[in-house]
């Protein structure tokens, strides 16, 4: 069974969101998502400073099986990206909720975060899909 940390928020398209003390949010893909994708061989993150729109594709993860879009869970500006993933995409498989984070966004509307699922709702959604 895949892990679903309680302190995070989740999107329907399997991204997780962590609210940081400074009001920004860190974004990654869930343990469930990385397990479905299999071993990642390539991660393309958005550029720092670029705007993202909630629900729009803004990053790509590619595994030995397939390439998938990652959707921005909230709108705002990208303020940091995980540079390590360019050389070590396997971090996402090994540590999806920590070292495998993808990018950090300064949200333009913090209300969007409240619209995301909590851990229990996300776990229930995953259970209903399998």
């Amino acid at each position, binding site marked *: 069974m895949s892990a679903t940390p309680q302190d995070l928020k989740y999107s329907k398209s399997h991204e997780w969101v962590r609210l940081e003390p400074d009001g920004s949010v860190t974004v990654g893909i869930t343990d469930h998502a990385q397990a*479905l994708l299999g*071993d990642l*061989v*390539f991660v393309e993150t958005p550029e720092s400073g670029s705007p993202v729109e909630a629900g729009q594709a803004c990053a790509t993860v590619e595994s*030995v*099986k*397939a390439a*998938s879009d990652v959707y921005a869970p909230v709108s705002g500006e990208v303020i940091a990206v995980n540079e390590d993933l360019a050389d070590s*995409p*396997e971090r996402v498989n090994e540590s999806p909720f920590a070292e495998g984070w993808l990018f950090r966004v300064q949200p333009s509307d913090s209300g969007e975060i409240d619209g995301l699922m909590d851990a229990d709702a996300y776990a229930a959604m995953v259970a209903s899909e*399998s």
Partner: protein
Amino acid sequence: MMNPQEPGLIFEHSREGRSAAAQMPRRPDGPIRIPEALRRRSAPGLPSASELDVVRHYTRLSQRNFSIDTQFYPLGSCTMKYNPRACNSLAMLPGFLNRHPLAPAGYSQGFLQTMHELQEMLREVTGMSGVSLTPMAGAQGEFAGVAMIRAYHDARGDRQRSEIIVPDAAHGTNPATAIMCGYQVREIPTDASGDVDLDALRAAVGPQTAGIMLTNPSTLGVFERRIREIAGIVHEAGGLLYYDGANLNAILGKVRPGDMGFDVIHMNLHKTFSTPHGGGGPGAGAVGVSQRLLPFLPVPVVVRTDDGPYRLATEADRPQTIGRLSAFAGNAGVLLRAYVYMRMLGREGMTRVAEFSTLNANYVMAELRRAGFDLAFPERRATHEFIVTLKRQSRETGLTAMDVAKRLLDHGYHAPTTYFPLLVPECLLIEPTETESRQTLDGFVTAMVAVLEESGRDIETIKGAPHRLPNRRFNEVAAAKRLDVVYRPEAAETAAGL
């Protein structure tokens, strides 16, 4: 010392001073005319080997091939449909081979006639109003198709149309093509039974809709059942319908995209019409259009007035054309093979292609279901292909689509397509094609059943497959991330401990 059973690399057969003198190209007489500054400073790192060593090396390598000439290939027409030998030999007649592409039309009447007849046969079989053979591949055919949609709207001054609708079951090339032509892509979902979600389509269309790109049969291995309604919804909104005709073998002689209401279609002749492909071409992505898109067809196209000579119509004849896609008129050699294939089949033969490609797929589907495999769309009939999902097995025994693919190799069968379409987890997309006999299909089913049974008692053996091939299971992550195809003698010496 090299293992004589291992072909190794051609470089490992290289010995100073050896050569195949009889095969050497002749050096031109006289001085070399390449300017000094552009000449290379060191000799290229080519191997020096004798003719016999080279022959043995490549013959051994070829013996390791899984090929359509030796094994069943359930990848189907998308990759490796059988190409009848006659297509090849007739397209290689000296009159075709030796014709220069710049030869005047007066000296090329035979060739131009075959191309004209090919245009007409494709027009007839698709139900469109006109065909151009110039696109050199499926991707270029798609580009030509959407470029014509844009040219049509532009010619009417209808410039607000900025979106192409693409169902999520479409080929991955469709959204790429729309973007290449300057459109935004709006994706719409598929419903649980594999059809386009009509409510989502109704909500998506509007004055911004330039068109929809649709694959029918879809990549889910089912026929779109409400195609007329889809056509109605899109046309009513002022958009055009694009038919991705990559694989037409399921519908040949049965139904025609033109009759379904489509405005433009591209056809991968190297798939349906059995010309060689794989490894990047050369391909042929002919396009067909409805009446209103005729002026925009890419040039040149072969035309003939009454009983006059055949000639190539160009920009001068078709001022609204989207232009040229190739230096001449497409891949002539590939087009000739498609022509021969269609002439050999004839009208009745083409209908039989559709009947046997769908019958073979439905037969294998029914047999696999009976043996305990789960189908992605169990309530639907197969088109020329169908999808098995190993979602349940992957949870219960750990048997994945990749495991089945690898273990099938040990049984002497090439793997079907794995992990495509992306909508279905742990899937195998199986297309037997029309050319396989019942005995071959039964053999494949037997192998699939053997793998399934084995997974219940010995999953470890399957996880290590293939066992009977020269190479075992590859580390795909390393192959994708650290692919190294450059031979360096120093590295080889280090590895050999020299």
